[in-house]
């Protein structure tokens, strides 16, 4: 247990059993994993691959069938470690009859923080997650995204050193997704360690330093994102203010052939849908009242 490991698992295995002890499912199989201080670690995998199971084992909500899980160098079953952990559950498992303020107050009281700091932090977090206007409404009335936001605020109430996020972007609109990603990067900047799991690959790609891919409880890949994704055999160029013509293509082919390579494709880059969505939302904010009119209708109304 070296001190710079925030999380360490040693052949961590979880078998779900039914009441009679019969085996139902091996959700996690001999997982060996270490997460270093200050990194953003992504746990990837298709549905049912054991991501949530891993997280629950780390939090002590489940007990390992075999192997060990350590957080901050201590066994996961210890309660004291929770002082330094923030956890955003897969779905916000919060009490629906509390409002945002009461929620943060309740969870805050479970930590050993002075009352003033707690109140102060709660107010700041509510502003940060953008629920300032809704803080007196009970959670039952919240939309999924709003619950995800208060869930995040709840996870940060103790200013944790390790933040565990289970599907942080689920239920969030693209704007919220971007905000969440920025926030995760911000957490790293503050020196915190983040463990997130997701099956939205673009999210992971954008923020994670290292990832592990699980499939059916088995660890398939583990490594730095940049290393895993880099394609050393290909080269990408990008140019501005030129038209794609057969001549250009022929010239480029000649150049690449000269260097022993081969031209694969020439074309216009498309922006991502995310970028488009973000641009439109930004514009709508800048010009309230703007409405989209389909081209056909414009023509019709013009007549």
């Amino acid at each position, binding site marked *: 247990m070296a001190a710079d490991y925030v999380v360490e698992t040693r052949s961590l295995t979880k078998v779900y059993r039914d009441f009679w002890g019969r085996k139902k499912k091996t959700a996690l199989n001999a997982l060996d994993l270490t997460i270093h201080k200050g990194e953003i670690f992504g746990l990837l995998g298709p549905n049912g691959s054991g991501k949530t199971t891993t997280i629950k084992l780390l*939090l*002590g909500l489940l007990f*390992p069938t075999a192997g*060990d899980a350590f957080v901050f160098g201590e066994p*996961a079953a210890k309660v004291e470690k929770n002082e330094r952990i923030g956890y955003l559950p897969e779905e916000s*498992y919060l009490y629906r009859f509390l409002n945002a303020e*009461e929620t943060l107050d309740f969870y805050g*009281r479970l930590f050993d923080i002075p009352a003033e700091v707690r109140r102060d932090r709660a107010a700041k977090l509510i502003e940060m997650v953008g629920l300032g206007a809704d803080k007196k409404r009970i959670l039952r009335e919240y939309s999924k995204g709003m619950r995800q936001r208060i869930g995040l605020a709840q996870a940060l109430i103790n200013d944790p050193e390790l933040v565990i996020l289970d599907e942080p972007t689920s239920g969030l609109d693209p704007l919220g997704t971007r905000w969440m990603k920025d926030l995760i990067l911000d957490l790293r900047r503050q020196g915190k360690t983040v463990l997130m799991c997701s099956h939205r690959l673009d999210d992971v790609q954008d923020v994670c330093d290292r990832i592990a891919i699980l499939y059916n409880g088995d660890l398939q890949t583990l490594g730095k994102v940049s290393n895993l994704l880099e394609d050393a055999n290909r080269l990408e160029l990008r140019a501005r203010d030129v038209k794609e013509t057969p001549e250009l293509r022929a010239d480029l082919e000649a150049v690449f052939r000269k260097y022993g390579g081969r031209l694969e494709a020439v074309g216009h880059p498309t922006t991502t849908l995310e970028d488009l969505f973000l641009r439109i939302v930004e514009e709508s904010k800048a010009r309230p009242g703007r409405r989209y009119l389909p081209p056909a209708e414009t023509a019709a109304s013009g007549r």
Partner: protein
Amino acid sequence: MTPLFGILQLDRGEPLGFANVSGLVQAWLQDAGGFAAVGLVVYLLYALSVPTDKSQSERLRVPVSTWMLAMAALALVCYAGVLALLVLGKGGSPEPPPPPPGAAAVTPPTVWHPEPRPVLLMVAGLFAVLGIAEPFVRDLVLVRGRRVWALAKLGFKEAAASRLYWVFLLALLPFLFRNVWSAGVRPVDEFRNLVGVTTLVETVLVLAVGLILAAFSLPTDIKNQTIHTVLTKPVLRFEVVLGRFLGYVGLMTLALAAMTAASLVLINAANINEKAEAETAKARVPVRGKLDFKSRKADFEGTNVGREFDYRKYIAGHPDSPQRAVWSFARVPAAALNPPGDFIPVEFTFDIFKMTKGEENRGAKVVFRFVTHNCPQAPPEPNQRGNWQWADRQPDAAGKTPEQRYQAAVEEYRQQGVNPALATPADPKGWAAVNDLAERFGFYEIPDKEVFDYAVMGVDVPAGLFRNARKNDPPVVDGKPAPRVQVYVKCESPGQMLGMAEPDLYLLESTLPFSLNFVKWAAGLWCKLCVVVGVAVACSTYLSGVLSLLTTLIVYWLGTMTEFLNDLALNRSVGGGPFESMSRLVRAESPTAPPSETGGAQVVQAFDRFFAWVVRRIQNVVPDVESFTWTNFVSEGFNVSGEYLVVNLLTLVGYLVPWFVLAYYLLKSREVAS
């Protein structure tokens, strides 16, 4: 007609007081210790069966300390000792004599047993408890009020959000529809009934709501997975249990307080029959005595008049009857020495059984004789007709016996125009004379009191008598000090039998306000509330909401049947236990025939003994709900002494602690997320 208080009390005996605490602790250690020992052995076997190379987390989850092992070993050694004594048939407590056939068996009060076997059993239990409680106590010191309070408040808010509190308006129903349910009630019973119905409604409301809240809270939390978020904070699992318990108990305490206050206001405002109010709307503090029946023959024990279910014994009425019912009081209450008005009321309720058809609406003529140990009485000689005599016939210097001196003193007062035989506290001069005589001679007699059937009545006794009783130490008779005050009751009406039981007559030390007593009743209900909420929360750490609800209901319901369980546990029903009854049924034998001695019959009896043993274990798990019920005290107008409530509280703690330890282990061993 409501049965009278005395009868109800006889059923259960005196409530447990401080004198029983040592016995209660011993019994608790024996019983809880037995369960603890089984738990400890199972725990250790499980923990040791985990291979040591398994995982560190597993060993952390099921820790085994040297302490636990040592305690288990000590407990087992002691249990072996108990077993040895049992086999040798030594060191046990003496068995109480079996009750005469047909008589209701009264459970002996819980007292300390100093014999080696029960003491060793207790010590064994103590070791087992110390062993199993170690991890629990270790975690208990980590419990923080801040977190428990936050969790308790959560339970509060949850219940408030469900708008459950409207249910408590049902507590007003008895008052709204009073004319409906009180239609057939005798005027004297009006107050009893009002109190009875109010307490019933309140009990049902408080317990039902508390039970539902407690049984479903944790299971819902686990089902909605909201508990995940809580348990990923630095919260001990036991704090969740404690928080739920305190939250719901706190909430229901508020509800109970509100309902009690409202009921009190409404009861006080209710229009009650005057006689009923005088009889029951107060809290008497009685001083109770011991009842014996005496006659010329030494072995007179009172007569049975052949009524079924009659706890009372009877004395025959006749001017010459030597039969007396005698209440003996070992203690003179301090309040009796100088009471306001210089008298102490004595209250009584007698049953009159008419042998011949006498005049209707006429009572029986009864003589009350109050004496102290300074004026002992002796049964009459055959030639003395029925009159009991002053036992002390020593003439003084002037040659006069005490009785003669007393007569002379009475005569002296007569000549001054005061008749002590007729004086009442309303006549200060006469009463001063009565007090003077009583203080000097330790004797006071009410020669002619008309007593009515089944009515609470009273006579006033001069305080001087008690001042006399404080003089000198009573002589020692048969190793025990003689009682300081005795009351001799005689019935003079021929053809009438006067029936009485021990609680039927008492000195009235003082009278407290009804309202205070009602609040004490609520304290008893509060204990029951804690039992219900505690058991339900403990069950719900492992069972689903519905199952927790049912389990708690069954446990509570069994708790209301302690009498029945007692009979089964002591294997003393007529015709033997269930197996013997069945075999008698099969062989068409009468249940009262003596048990046969064949081998088969012995096997059947062994089964019955085993069954009784099982019932006794069930009894250990079941709360003695009735011991928290003070309804009869309140509705009959008797003070619930603070002592009883303290013992209630001790019993409550003793009952709940094992449940909490169980809940601790259950929730700790549970994977909440699977």
